């Protein structure tokens, strides 16, 4: 232990010496340095001025799949430019995102687990929940499709899962309590199968990681289309089953309700910013933008906008 300490100290020492040297060299011409100080201060004032004009920042808790798809990187800069509100995206599983809302750690949520979301609003943590868009899930698997699912049931996910379970073919589950994981479990339930055993691997990871594991193990998995398409070139995996209604996935937006918290937390929630973000996301222009995303790169949209205008 002592040795490590000594080592750390000596590294620190080296840094200190290195850092310490610089001002010494520059400090020789004192007059000049002082002159510079004034201009630096002026700059600071200007910067602060700009900051005050902005709408501050909001914390958006969302799922890893929205982040991984690249949609947010595509649309958020536009919002930030229009409104001056900075959006800090925290991409986590739906479970954690909802928990963040309950703890008052997020201002607004963009998630896709309708039941849990409605429960969240019913408990009073969310003000409203509005549909934003949907995407769909797909079953992906090895290019050779060893179980011939593509041939036998290209649009029937229930049949596909039954075949996988019957053959005990390796299937990778997200296993992380995310919206996608919940969706997958609900489809298994629909197919009346309880997935368990050597063949059913729960990765406990995000979609990107799960796709990589699926690729390595040449297994099957259920993925959202967006993440799969964005990684398609690096994977030896094909879309095996798609277009089943069971695979559709609705995203909702929920601003967190500050009234639910005590004053200390309440103060920190940016209610106005969250409202503006929601309105913007549901506006016709933005909806159009969402519908465009992915067409250029993948030849098909990743998300279908379906906000209802009141």
């Amino acid at each position: 232990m002592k040795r490590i300490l000594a080592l750390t100290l000596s590294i620190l020492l080296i840094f200190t010496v290195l850092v310490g040297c610089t001002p010494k060299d520059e400090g020789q011409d004192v007059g000049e340095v002082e002159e510079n100080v004034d201009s630096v201060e002026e700059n600071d004032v200007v910067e602060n001025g700009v900051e005050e004009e902005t709408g501050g920042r909001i914390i958006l808790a969302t799922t890893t799949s929205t982040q991984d798809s690249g949609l947010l990187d595509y649309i958020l800069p536009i919002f930030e430019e229009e409104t001056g509100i900075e959006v800090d995206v925290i991409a986590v599983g739906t479970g954690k995102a909802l928990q963040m809302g309950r703890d008052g750690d997020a201002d607004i949520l963009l998630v896709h687990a309708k039941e849990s979301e409605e429960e969240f609003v019913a408990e009073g943590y969310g003000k409203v929940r509005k549909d934003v868009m949907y995407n769909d899930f797909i079953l992906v698997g090895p290019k050779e499709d060893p179980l011939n699912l593509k041939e036998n049931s290209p649009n029937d996910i229930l049949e596909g899962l039954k075949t996988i379970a019957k053959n005990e073919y390796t299937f990778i589950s997200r296993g992380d309590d995310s919206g996608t994981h919940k969706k997958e479990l609900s489809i298994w339930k629909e197919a009346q199968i309880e997935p368990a055993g050597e063949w059913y691997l729960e990765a406990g990871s995000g979609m990107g990681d799960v796709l990589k594991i699926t690729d390595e193990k040449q297994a099957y998995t259920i993925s959202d289309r967006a993440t799969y398409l964005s990684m398609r070139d690096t994977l030896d995996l094909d879309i095996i089953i798609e277009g089943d209604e069971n695979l559709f996935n609705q995203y909702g937006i929920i601003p967190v309700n500050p009234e639910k918290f005590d004053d200390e937390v309440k103060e920190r929630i940016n209610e106005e910013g969250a409202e503006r973000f929601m309105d913007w996301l549901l506006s016709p222009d933005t909806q159009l933008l969402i519908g465009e995303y992915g067409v250029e790169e993948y030849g098909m949209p990743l998300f279908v906008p379906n906000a209802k205008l009141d």
Partner: protein
Amino acid sequence: MDYIQEGFKEALKLLIGFDKEVYGIISLSLIVSTTATIIASFLCIPLGIHLGLKEFKGKRAFSRILYTFMSIPSVIVGLVVAILLSRRGPFGKFDLLYTPKAMIIAQTLLVTPLILGLTYSLSKNRGKEIERIGQTLGGNKLDIIILIIKELKLDLMVNIVTAFSRAISEVGAVMIVGGNIRNRTRVITTTISMMNSMGDYPMAIALGIVLLIISFGINSLIYSYSGDD
């Protein structure tokens, strides 16, 4: 605040009730990190002692590089091992990625520079003196290396434990090369990280407690050992 209390209660239940999954995770952690530490120790202790005693050109540069590698971020090790073991990578045919073996490889690489560096600096600082005594008493090269290992036994043990602590507490490398697959490659740290992102605290807390106990346990073991010597 309630959920913290609840979390602790549930955590204790899992531990006392010998929850199968929790103990599976703990034992995999121990197996992976212990194996990695042992492999790295066998390779690096004799080599470190030898290099510490030997005068060679560029020894200072070598020290500097070695010491830098001692604190190599675990995610970088994970990344490199993942690239090498991936099906498209040079060692793809062994089908090792996302297995415990891959995790052992990654952690071995992670602690190798640590053990080598610590042994090397120990040998450089204290080995010389022992080497001189060994020489004046008539020992040959092998006698002397054995003598140094025996003399520095305690410090070497501390180094090994330091390396083990680093291995068992790192999350980056095992997450990347293990994939955190349930009942396969899930270890304490990856589970905690996952449970946190799921907002599910009891198991995370239970495993956090175990990790703390392990760390405290080995550290106090070392201190009591060095205390009565």
